[in-house]
């Protein structure tokens, strides 16, 4: 028997169907293995897809809303989903099917439905009953946003270890100078040559 969880926010609902991971001794009502998901927006076609599509679609909405709020160009494009602002109030969503010969699904949603959808995703993220594997996150982030995600701390963590390594090598190699005596070495070579 599969578990079903629904998250609602005004005109949007998100249904998650799946099973608990019994190998991790999880509770009966937990969902860790998602088998099906549906995003239902009132007066719009039903959105459903493969399990591995849920994460990238959620990320697309989050990244797009961040761009929108931070006054950056609100365009998100990926192999799976494109989101673009038609104007200040309407957003154009293109969902591309992975199956051949299937036309992309085009939706136009306003700010109210956009915030409902993101609030549904927030509920799913914060739910203790569902665990989602986060996949394909960094792959689809536009360059501008990457700077925001990899913040100063991450950059410092990335840059400092090689610097420490280089300085340690310099320090160690300079210590070897004390053991190396070029005059003594010359004498040794001369002795060998005279022999």
């Amino acid at each position: 028997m599969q578990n079903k969880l629904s998250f609602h926010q005004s005109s949007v609902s998100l249904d998650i169907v799946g099973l608990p991971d019994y190998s991790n001794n999880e509770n009966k009502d937990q969902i860790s293995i998602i088998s099906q998901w549906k995003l239902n927006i009132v007066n719009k076609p039903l959105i459903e897809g493969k399990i591995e599509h849920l994460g990238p679609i959620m990320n697309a909405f989050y990244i797009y809303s961040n761009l929108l709020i931070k006054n950056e160009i609100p365009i998100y494009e990926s192999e799976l989903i494109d989101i673009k602002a038609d104007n200040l109030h309407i957003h154009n969503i293109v969902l591309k099917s992975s199956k051949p010969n299937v036309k992309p699904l085009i939706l136009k949603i306003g700010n109210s439905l956009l915030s409902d959808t993101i609030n549904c995703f927030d509920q799913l993220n914060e739910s203790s009953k569902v665990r989602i594997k986060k996949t394909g996150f960094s792959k689809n982030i536009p360059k501008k946003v990457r700077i925001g995600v990899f913040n100063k701390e991450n950059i410092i963590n990335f840059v400092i270890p090689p610097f420490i390594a280089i300085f340690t090598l310099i320090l160690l190699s300079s210590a070897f100078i004390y053991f190396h005596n070029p005059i003594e070495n010359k004498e040794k070579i001369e002795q060998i040559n005279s022999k």
Partner: protein
Amino acid sequence: MPNKITIWKLRNNNPLRKSYVNNNIKLIEFDALIKITVEMSRYLYPYIREILKSKEDLEKNSVIWKDFNKRLIELIKERFNLDSMRVKKLLNQTENDEIIVKSLLTLSLCISNKGYEKLKNFLFEF
């Protein structure tokens, strides 16, 4: 926040207000204001949503948007320093739509349990 008067006094840290006083707001007070804002937007989400929705359909008469905008402008004129360029921008009909929509959208996206962290991030990156 010990009482409402403390919140009322903290509002004077806003440089756009007529009664602006630089009291050097403490971090704990800044956090408290964010928490209050998140709680208020959670409570007012249905209204925020309706205001945003009323502006979406250009063919329909956006009465809710007009009422909200009218009241907001009244409050700005009553309480804000009208000599400030930023306040003038807020009162400019052609420019303030974007500011209002984005502010309402920001509030509507911060109603989850982690809304406090979200709003704080938005404000720091503003």
